[in-house]
């Protein structure tokens, strides 16, 4: 299958799913921190970590699930924008917590995903 088509199919699913997860989490968690974006970024980091650890995953799966789906499911722009807005509104500790928390937990999620991926499909 054409590599561009694989990326497009993955992204076509990942981007709307990000919106739906974000909306659901934001409605459920009535908390003034961007938990919706946090959630999609953690889920995407686990999946991409697992895919990266799975040696059996071929280049087509990497394009479809990795570049396409996980790339579009997760977002750096919204994450940074939300952090910047918290900072501008004077909620500096919340902004720092969002940045440090997302990076640290996201890294942990990717490590965990990688471990699972290499254990089961390595």
């Amino acid at each position, binding site marked *: 299958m054409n*590599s*561009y088509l694989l*990326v*497009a199919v*993955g*992204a*076509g*699913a*990942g*981007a*709307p799913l*990000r*919106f*739906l997860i*974000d*909306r659901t989490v*934001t409605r459920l968690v009535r908390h*003034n921190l*961007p938990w*919706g*974006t946090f959630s999609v*970024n953690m889920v*995407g*980091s686990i*999946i*991409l*970590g697992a895919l*990266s650890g799975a040696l059996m995953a071929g280049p087509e799966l990497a*394009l479809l699930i*990795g*570049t*396409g789906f*996980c*790339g*579009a*499911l*997760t*977002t*750096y*722009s*919204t*994450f*940074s*924008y*939300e*952090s*910047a*807005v918290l*900072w*501008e509104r004077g909620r500096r500790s919340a902004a720092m917590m969002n*940045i440090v928390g*997302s*990076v640290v937990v*996201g*890294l942990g*999620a*990717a*490590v965990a*995903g*990688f471990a699972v991926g290499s254990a089961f499909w390595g």
Partner: protein
Amino acid sequence: MDPDLPDPTPNPTSTALVLLLIATGGILGALLRYQLGLWWPTPTGHLPWTTLTINVTGCFTIGCFMVTIGAVPRPLLRPFLVTGILGGYTTFSTYTVDLVHLGREGHWVMGIGYGLGTAAAAIAGVLLGMRLGRLLGPESRAVVRQA
């Protein structure tokens, strides 16, 4: 608070339209990210400059858009441009997984530099974009509103 959430859409047709616009924008953004990666691939053990550049330019652009887009009476512009294109263009998962690889390969200093550098440059990019957007845009702070 959340720029990914457009105004409430009780009408199911408009929700479907919003999802379609997000998917279309997401595909365009992801294809652009993929193409840039093909043009400038990152060799193993090197700093992922392409992903870093993609994320920082996406952050600058979201800053610009978010302070100007509210002034335009086009409610579907944000789902397409911001949630769709910029969301599909920038990536958090590649960033975290690249950090895992740098760590596994023993490039600790580069990993820490990449991790902190991207986060700092991304925030700086957003703030710079917002500043530029406010300079050029018709409306100012009112646009950064509670959602």
